[in-house]
């Protein structure tokens, strides 16, 4: 099979590392060759963060380039817009709609674009948008936005729910497991 590409984009500190770890674990157990590329260090301090997950028969490059992503999983709508040019023709966006103002917006040097998700949809891009923060809080923690999004993403894969749950069990500390399972299920059903 041709290599499939998933980009996870968001704001440093939103938990993209757990999302990529979980996807990597799941895809490897499904027998694929997998590469995951992460961002550590300076960029994690509230900056724009991107993680690449690639899988297939044999994966060479660890990163995803413009026009290549089958999925952009976005923790924050502005970040979906920022990385939009990386989406493949007919690619799918799965995004949280809860925005976080970047510093240039906070200081008044720039404006947060209005109706950003609608603007992406107007381009004919397949966009699945949901308020992950609200769902995560209902599930028990605002920090579970990442797992809510993964739950939603699971719609687009043929994997069994039990396989996703196994990956959750392998990647999430035991004391947060139940909350995360709930967040995943709520995301999947949203």
């Amino acid at each position: 099979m041709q290599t499939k590409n998933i980009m996870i984009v968001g704001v440093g500190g939103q938990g993209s590392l757990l999302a990529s770890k979980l996807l990597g674990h799941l895809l490897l157990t499904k027998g694929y060759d997998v590469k995951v590329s992460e961002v550590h260090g300076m960029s994690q301090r509230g900056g724009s963060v991107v993680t690449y997950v690639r899988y297939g028969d044999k994966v060479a490059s660890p990163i995803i380039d413009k026009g290549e992503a089958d999925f952009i999983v976005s923790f924050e709508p502005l970040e979906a817009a920022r990385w939009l040019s990386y989406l493949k023709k007919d690619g799918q966006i799965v995004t949280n709609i809860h925005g976080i103002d970047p510093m240039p917006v906070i200081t008044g040097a720039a404006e947060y674009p209005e109706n950003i998700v609608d603007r992406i949809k107007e381009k004919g891009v397949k966009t699945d948008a949901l308020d992950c923060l609200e769902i995560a809080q209902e599930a028990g923690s605002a920090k579970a936005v990442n797992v809510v999004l993964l739950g939603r993403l699971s719609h687009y894969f043929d994997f069994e729910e039990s396989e996703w749950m196994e990956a959750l069990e392998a990647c999430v500390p035991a004391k947060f497991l139940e909350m995360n399972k709930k967040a995943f299920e709520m995301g999947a059903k949203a």
Partner: protein
Amino acid sequence: MKELMLGNKAVARGLYEAGVCFVSSYPGTPSTEITEEAVKYDEIYCEWAPNEKVALEAAFGASLAGLRSFSGMKHVGLNVAADPLYTMSYTGVNAGLVIGVADDAGMHSSQNEQDSRRHAIGAKVPMLEPSDSAEALEFAKLAYELSEEYDTPVLLKMCTRVAHSQSVVERSDRSEHKKEYKKDPGKYSMSPANAIRRHPIIEERMRKLAQYAETAPVNRVEYSDDTSLGIITSSTSYQYVKEVFGDSVCVLKLGMAYPLPENLIKTFASKVDRLVVVEELEPIIEDFCKGLGLEVSGKDIFPICGEFSQGLVAQTLGKEVAEGPSLEVEIPGRPPIMCAGCPHRGLFFSLKKKDCTVIGDIGCYTLGGAPPLGMMDMTLCMGASVSAIHGFNRARELKGTEEEKKKNVVAVIGDSTFMHSGMTGLANIAYNMTDSTVIILDNSITGMTGHQQNPTTGYNIKGDPAGKIDLEALCRAMGFNRVTVVDPYDLAAVEKALDAELSAKEPSVIISRRPCALLKYVKHDPPLSVSADKCKSCKSCMKIGCPAISMKEGKAVIDRTQCTGCKVCKQLCPFDAIEG
């Protein structure tokens, strides 16, 4: 069993399997996780050293004593460790000694994008260069074999995309190694007389290693039926080449960055119509090819700045590249920022109020240079703030105008960076006497690289109690009479200290002390809130650039999920509108 593993973790696994017993490193993105993962093996003693030079020298000592040793650092860290490296090349090793160095093409988290291969060539030390996690593991092990067989330290070169990418590896068992120490000053004590005898031995070693490179399994030719294009490449660039071309072109994949295999390259070149080198940063393989008289393309078509990608390789070599959708909307940037509750924020706000020239350093506080604070005049390298303020102030004394002499100047440096190489600069201030004010931003951790302990924190790499250097006592012992400790959450206290020390006619140190707000043991106060009735929309609270505060419908609003209750903003509100 196959598993996904981060490149740096795979290096650590390689160290374990190679029987390494001693690791001494200084954290630096993208190298840090090698040591953080190595410490998880009980068989490997690990430590954070105060800087890379100390780390490498400690590793050398352990090698001398007979244990396989390792030192990890980022590219600029190898500059700090270059002094021992260049002479360690002469002494060679007892037990295997490997230096892991991680380059950062694209400068994701660095102040330059130098190419560490230049150090391998300069120091006459072999360098291996893996292109994924499986190679990172295997090359780490091979490095110890080469180190002991050829009596040399070996450089293992990572880069951001190999260090911070996960790919599939398989584990093997550990093998144990220990060597006896035998006194041999002719080999290990580099007085001129001994070093003169050693230099030709090193030249001979490099000739032998160049021979080894000709048939080394890490240098691999992948021929294709189509010989119109031949690409020589290494590291992550190899992966981009394979992504674009698969098996449709001939590829010479070099796992050994130095020394390079002359005959292997010549033979490869003779079998292809067009020879292209695909390498990030410096034209090292390319220049070597040119030195052999080969006609080759490299930096004439590929950039020397920044990192590569499959798209860049495809475009440069005439293949089609995909394009994605785009919006006709200006997307505001999202630069990294100081976190909500960051203790550095209040200090930088006070420096701005005093209109200071800020001679800066490397760490989270470099972000104090970003708007709206914008309080960073200079950032060079680890420790440079303390040295440079002395030169700046002395120059003002010598030739400054009256107005220049009145200007407030401070150096800012973090606790870990101060331990790394700020202390020697401080000694210069004490010795050659300028009225410099050095502010140590003591957040009780090495912050930017992700919370590593250091000699001022009182804990070692495992989090166990360890020696603790008393910063105040250290500064006093160096001859500083004026050492003040302030809490950066208390703006009045910070300003009072700045007024006193900036006007003092002698050198001074201000220690701005408050643990990083992200540390697990730091308990946050309840989040604050803004009374919409009292808020007069003056935006005073916006001047500190806290990500938890924004203006919504003309009033300041505090995001409760981000606010740590530090109350710095509260001290700025002229209308007591911030409550909690």
